């Protein structure tokens, strides 16, 4: 029973991090119908930035709390900046191109960013400091849940609540929803579509960076390649929930996290990634609209 509980909590933790990344995919897809392949790399860059800032700030003698806050902030800022720049360079000029072109551009961007980090930093795995302190009150339950898991669960839920608030109640959120519904119509009624798209990329990237910091600190190591697998898994989550739908992405991510947790816990950990990819293939074949997605009717 305890093992079962441990697997559930582990699955939820995993799932909530996938959710942070999946939101970026789903938001971008909702607005410009593009699978932003480079999104996984944005997350990886977030993790690297956090690692670099942590090391520098620690050496400069900042205290622990300041290091955590500043490094996370730097990760969020830099990831957002990268997300913004990637959109401007690779996707904006392709707004009116055929569907295949931006997708190929996105794959290229993903490979480029991976190798950029590989060349500028290193191909080795780097140890990532455990930023999250061990809480006293958790001690008796340590075998079931760790402090890190609690922090991850709280942070991700807060981020999601904030995002929901932003999309439901602010002007920007309204503009985003309008653009997702019908870009041309939104433009006609005076929404600055380019700005909305930029904001979408920035928010998505910021969430991914948060995910990057949390998971890196949880797992304890990073390298240039972590974005690829995490990206595909988050994408799986987004599709599972119904791409374009924000609650769908969260639901899909939790389902994926739990599936993986149980599959590795009860079956075999060798095939961890196979389960995720297999799930992806199965959903796309049998229910491409996902759990909460709706079927879009193409106009002919």
């Amino acid at each position, binding site marked *: 029973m305890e093992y079962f509980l441990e697997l559930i909590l582990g699955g939820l933790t995993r799932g909530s991090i996938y959710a942070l990344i999946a939101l970026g995919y789903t938001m971008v897809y909702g607005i410009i119908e593009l699978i932003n392949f480079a999104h996984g790399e944005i997350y990886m860059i977030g993790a690297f930035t956090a690692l670099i800032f942590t090391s520098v700030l620690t050496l400069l003698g900042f205290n622990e709390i300041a290091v955590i806050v500043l490094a996370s902030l730097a990760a969020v800022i*830099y990831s957002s900046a990268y997300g913004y720049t990637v959109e401007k360079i690779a996707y904006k000029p392709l707004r009116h191109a055929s569907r295949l072109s931006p997708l*190929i*551009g996105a794959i*290229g961007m993903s490979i480029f960013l*991976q190798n950029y980090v590989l060349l500028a930093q290193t191909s080795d795995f780097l140890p990532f400091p455990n930023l999250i302190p061990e809480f006293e009150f958790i001690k008796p339950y340590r075998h079931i849940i760790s402090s890190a898991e609690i922090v991850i669960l709280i942070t991700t839920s807060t981020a999601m609540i904030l995002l929901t608030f932003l999309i439901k109640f602010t002007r920007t959120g309204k503009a985003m929803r309008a653009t997702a519904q019908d870009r041309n119509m939104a433009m006609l009624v005076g929404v600055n579509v380019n700005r909305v798209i930029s904001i979408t990329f920035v928010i998505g990237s910021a969430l991914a960076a948060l995910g990057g910091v949390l998971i890196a600190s949880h797992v304890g190591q990073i390298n240039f390649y972590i974005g*690829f697998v995490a990206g595909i898994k988050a994408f799986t989550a987004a*599709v599972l929930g119904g791409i374009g739908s924000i609650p769908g992405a969260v639901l899909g991510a939790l389902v994926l996290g739990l599936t993986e947790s149980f599959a590795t816990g009860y079956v075999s950990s060798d*095939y961890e990634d196979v389960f995720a990819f297999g799930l992806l*293939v199965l959903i*796309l074949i049998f229910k491409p609209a996902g759990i909460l997605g709706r079927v879009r009717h193409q106009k002919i």
Partner: protein
Amino acid sequence: MIKAREIKKSFLVSIWFMFLTFPIMVIRVNPIEKIVEWRWKNMLVVGIGSFLLSFVWRYMLKKKEAGEKRAETGESGKTFLIQRILEERRFYIPLVTGLTIIAVAFPFIFSMYQTSIMTTALMYIVLGLGLNIVVGLAGLLDLGYVAFYAVGAYSYALLNHHFGLGFWSVLPIGAVLGFIFGVLLGFPVLRLRGDYLAIVTLGFGEIIRLVLENWNEFSFGPSGIANIDRPGFFGIQFSLQAASIYLYFLMIGLVIFTIIVVNRLQNSRIGRAWIALREDETACQAMGIDKTRTKLRAFALGATWAGMVGVIFAAKTTFINPASFTFLESAMILSIVVLGGMGSILGVIIGALILILLPEYLRAFSDYRMLLFGAIMVIMMVFRPQGIIANIRRTYKFNE
């Protein structure tokens, strides 16, 4: 004259990129030894580089926009020099003769090492042409192409290892297995929309690699299979040198065969159906073309070619393991097609030669190889989506 406004723009871009690349490019940390290395020189390079590149970028964007306007008003745009030369029939014979002489003489003039690199390049030409059927002609973005390449390579390696089957008997088996896998994987996924198809094929490719990596009893896991036989010739086994020349000519033969096949296909009933499918699925179906069957044909044919080259790859390297069949390999073949020109045979050949030979011969490039591939995909999509050599359609003459 460059206006002040332009300079200011580029200056801002340069500042932005210096800021953007600051943590990754300038700082390098070693968390184990707690050392931080500051590389301020990189910042200077990024600053100057992005300043200059932003002029080029804007110039090229402007040029492209102008080109699009021209196309809208009905004027035909300029074509590349090579393309114009190729349209001239009188250049054909000397060109083909010249190429034949070079191709035949190559292994005897250059070293074994060079021959081996050229053989690799030829393999990528064939892979590129195979993927070109799927991506370029039929417009199906297949990101798991390498899976079929792995099927071919492993079928030779395993059949050779367990049953001692020779190269020539496995070559058709590899092709057929590639075809069968193509049909099996293609059948359920080909009704998906373009971008989903890309992801599913990527997923399949990764699944096949992960299975090869973990299923030790079947595939010998990450350590792979060694001592695979080189191809023989009616039972004769060659020396290393002769074998490499033999493989080279074998590849030349396969390249020629592939060119003939693809060329005939693209101006056939099936080839036209592929292109129509790429252009507009709904209209294509409304004109009486069976969407799924037509897609499946392209997908399976591409897979057949990958299976064949896989067998040759195993025979050439005599050692294979799952590391040769990662997503990056698929991406590399894709960038060959993208650079060369989707749907264009000549384009793919040139693309493969550039992308495979350049990093080999310019050592400075070899580290930046994958960076280059990524950048090429982005740049080509932004500025010249049709590739170096755009696909030329056949013209017909009628007497009135």
